[in-house]
């Protein structure tokens, strides 16, 4: 994927149906476990990936294809897991509205997004017809293993 500098490990999970969401959140959880994040952070991340993949899948009920990219963006000072979901569906007509608590259309478009925003350290959503991109990241200070 283009989103990460060369050499940074990333996993790309295509999002086509409901089982892909389980695969995406499983991969995110595995990475979190590998980076030794605690069980609360593993669950925060896996739940967030579930919600954002859901957004993509709901968009895809209409058209297009999407994918979820999970990136280990850690450096010397901190652990960072970045997740990008992108699709080429019709887009979200009103992004501000989609981020409001309690908002959803077609029974769940982005119903969990306000919650994800609270769980994650970074959150960026942009959408136009033909391209929706949502980036979330969880960052934690590195605990010295001395």
């Amino acid at each position, binding site marked *: 994927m283009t989103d990460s500098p060369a050499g940074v490990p990333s996993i790309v999970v295509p999002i086509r*149906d*409901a*089982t892909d*969401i*389980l695969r995406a*959140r*499983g991969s995110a*959880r595995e990475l979190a476990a590998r980076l030794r994040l605690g*069980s*609360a952070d*593993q*669950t*925060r991340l*896996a*739940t967030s990936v*579930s*919600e954002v993949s*859901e957004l993509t899948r709901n968009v895809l009920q209409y058209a297009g294809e999407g994918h979820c990219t999970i990136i280990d963006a850690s450096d010397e000072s901190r652990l960072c897991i970045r997740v990008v979901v992108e699709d080429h569906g019709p887009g979200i007509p009103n992004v501000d509205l989609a981020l409001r*608590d*309690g908002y959803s259309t077609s029974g*769940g478009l982005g*119903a*969990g997004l*306000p*919650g*994800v925003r*609270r*769980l994650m350290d970074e959150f960026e959503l942009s959408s136009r017809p033909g391209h929706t991109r949502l980036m979330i990241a969880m960052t934690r200070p590195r605990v010295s293993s001395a």
Partner: protein
Amino acid sequence: MKIPVLRLGAILLTSIQVDLTDTEVMQFQADVLSVIAETEGRGLAIDITALEVVDSFMARTINDTASMARLLGAEVVVCGMRPAVALTLVEMGRELIGVETTFNLDDGLARLQRKIAQRGDNALAASGSS
């Protein structure tokens, strides 16, 4: 993936042990409701000890299932939520889980029997105790 619904006297017992897709969650809801109706179960315990992720869809479906079961005439408890799941749901905000919960299945069954007894279904509650 079909989630079995076990009958223990007047109480129905179900345990979600694997991650479910949204479609499977909806199937679970339909299955549980039809077993409640068929057996006239007075109580339903949903064990989620094994679940590591409860997202907003799952949470909403559990809430809805509980409301529907209550409309049919059954009491509902959700048992064994993991601390990380509780933490995540609360941080996500909103009233994601509005169901009665207990630490474990043991407590859940006791709670159900008490509730069933309270509303006057004594005979059934007694037959439900093991």
